[in-house]
């Protein structure tokens, strides 16, 4: 059997039951936002601040940086509860999931002390700068570059599709710091770029749903001090790759359409239509299985493993599922349908194209899975 296809059953520690209750109690007090289970759909600095006050940002990080010292499985429970309820997690999402762990793995002590407590307190948000106008899936082809100057680097270029850059404080930006050599993956570095620096211009791009949550970001002779380089200059590719298991295996990869399913099921309480119920059952069997796979991976991460193939499998299966939910539900709408279902469905269909693009396209993921199968 292929190693990368192992999803050993893992149980959630009994301690999470109380935590889950606390999160639910917290959420019942939250009434200011419209629920949407797409992690990228809602961003509220005020909500992120309230969440931080509960200790639910940076939960797994060491307490000496303000973190909660909790397990990945405890974090898992908090994140899945937030997504299922449709909370506006957009502001702190990247910092909590990715930027913080990156700094813990590769950052300097000074960087950790500066950024981690600020993320934990809900005062510092991050974006990711990878894609460029001429670079999407072929990440090694980026052209945004920096040249060494006294005490730091001079950065020029542009990033695109940068979610939340207009709200966030920093973006972890992948930059070419040495000319392209035979090894295309060499010469790349990760910088912590302050998005509010005068040399940084953030320009919103409207998406097809008519919202402006992603941006093009321009760097014009931006000075990046040496203290803002993450890890070793030139080690950027390996560092980016190490984030992928965190980025791709979580509940946000299959819960984006959850509000549609939840509202559909609610409407079916008063309908005994068989095809509708069969569809609800089908969507639930997928969801339960995906969740079990995803928790297996959270447990592997907790044990220090790097399950990249499993993460790609979850994201690909999960994204396929997220896109299937609205397409099938729209064909089985109950006669007595709620306004909430109609609204969730419309939102979901409008955002669905992004599900299989963001964080690694379907085609890239399937390439990774194929490598896991030994085909490449």
């Amino acid at each position, binding site marked *: *059997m*292929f190693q990368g296809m192992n999803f050993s059953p*893992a149980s959630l520690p009994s301690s999470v039951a109380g935590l889950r209750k606390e999160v639910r109690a917290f959420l019942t007090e939250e009434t200011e936002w419209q629920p949407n289970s797409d992690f990228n759909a809602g961003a509220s600095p005020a909500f992120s601040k309230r969440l931080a006050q509960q200790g639910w940002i940076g939960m797994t990080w060491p307490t000496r940086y303000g973190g909660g010292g909790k397990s990945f499985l405890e974090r898992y429970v908090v994140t899945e509860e937030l997504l299922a309820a449709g909370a506006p997690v957009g502001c702190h999402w990247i910092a909590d999931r990715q930027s913080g762990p990156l700094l813990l793995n590769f950052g300097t002590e000074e960087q950790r002390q500066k950024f981690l407590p600020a993320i934990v307190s809900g005062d510092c948000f991050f974006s990711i700068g990878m894609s460029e106008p001429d670079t999407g899936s072929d990440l090694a082809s980026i052209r945004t570059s920096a040249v060494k100057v006294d005490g730091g680097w001079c950065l020029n270029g542009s990033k695109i599709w940068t979610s939340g850059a207009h709200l966030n404080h920093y973006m972890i930006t992948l930059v070419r710091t040495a000319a392209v050599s035979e090894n295309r993956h060499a010469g790349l570095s990760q910088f912590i770029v302050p998005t509010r620096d005068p040399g940084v211009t953030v320009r919103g791009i409207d998406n097809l749903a008519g919202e402006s949550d992603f941006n093009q970001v321009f760097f014009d002779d931006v000075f990046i001090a040496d203290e803002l380089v993450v890890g070793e200059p030139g080690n950027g590719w390996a560092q980016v790759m190490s984030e992928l298991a965190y980025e791709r295996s979580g509940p946000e990869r299959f819960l984006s359409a959850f509000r549609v399913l*939840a509202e559909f099921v609610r409407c079916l309480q008063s309908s005994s239509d068989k095809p509708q119920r069969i*569809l*609800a059952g*089908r969507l639930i069997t997928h969801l339960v299985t995906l969740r079990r796979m995803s928790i297996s991976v959270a447990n592997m991460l907790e044990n220090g493993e790097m399950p990249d193939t499993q993460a790609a*499998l979850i994201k690909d299966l999960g994204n396929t599922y997220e896109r299937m939910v609205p397409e099938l539900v729209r064909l089985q709408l109950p006669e007595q349908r709620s306004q909430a279902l109609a609204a969730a469905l419309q939102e979901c269909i409008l955002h669905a194209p992004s599900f299989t693009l963001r964080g690694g396209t379907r085609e890239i993921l399937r390439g990774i*899975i194929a490598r896991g*199968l030994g085909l490449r």
Partner: protein
Amino acid sequence: MHEDQMLVADAANRIFTEECPPEVVEQAESGIYATGLWEILNTNGLLLAGVDEANGGSGGSIIDALIILREAARRAAPLPLAETFIAGQVLNHLQQPMPALPITLVQGNFELSPSGHLNGASSRVPFGRNCQSFLIAVNGANRQAPQTISLCLVDAGQVSIEQGNNISGEPCDHLSIETEVIESHVFNLDRQWLNYAELLGAAGRAVMMAGALEEMLQLTVDYALERHQFGKAIAKFQAIQQQLAVFAGEVAASKRAADTLLESAELNALDVAIAKARIGEASGISAEIAHQVHGAIGYTREHRLNQLTRRLWQWRDEFGNENYWQHYVAEIFLNDAAGELWQEITELKV
């Protein structure tokens, strides 16, 4: 899986790999019953795992039996193993000794008179011609105990078989019966236990499909690496890689759904429903891709691939197809009026 279950899996895997090569399956499909393989399994105690030793079984749990079925399915073992497993469980529950094997539980249209005259028929009995014993479920409730039904144990000499087969190519016969049953061979079985026997069947088919799917993925990957076209292995083409990645996703989900059944001490009906529905869905998609990648050679009867795909097409329809179990899952979630969907999902064991 626990360590002793891994040992069971390894032992079973070794025996099926050595003793059930594709030729054995081919022979069985040409009408020669695999008696030799059956005897080897018998000698190794692999036929009646989960049946108490006191009743003539090999002890252990039904999980051991499910693990053995999964290993058997990887090699498309052409024997009534699941059938014997289910009937064995029923007899074990009734504290009855095991009769001559193989045995199968038969439902259909059967009547039993007060004097012990049994007659009726069932149109689809897998491996009917090969079974030595039959447990016949009589229609309708017992007059004295309405929550039970009567089960009659009869032997091969008491039934008439008309041969047929199903989509898998395995025997699936018409059975008719007109016989006297002695009193000690008539048992009362709780109706609930008859439902439980169906659940055992669904669980058995779910893990068998998961095993066959894993094997089929391995076969297909190996073939893609070995088959050359346009000057390179077809595995190097993105069109093939993308299809195999989808296949792998379906197999990974199936394996996870099946493993859930093997993790618990006893069967949870909802988990069986989820596994049977999810793996059934995976079977169709996976068989399609496996055949597409194999090309015409996989479509030939002699190729091993279709020993697996034909069985998947059969098993996904037995003991409740996808829609049957999807509806069952929906009913459980929807009839719990107090519960919100999310709350119910998080209450399930992961």
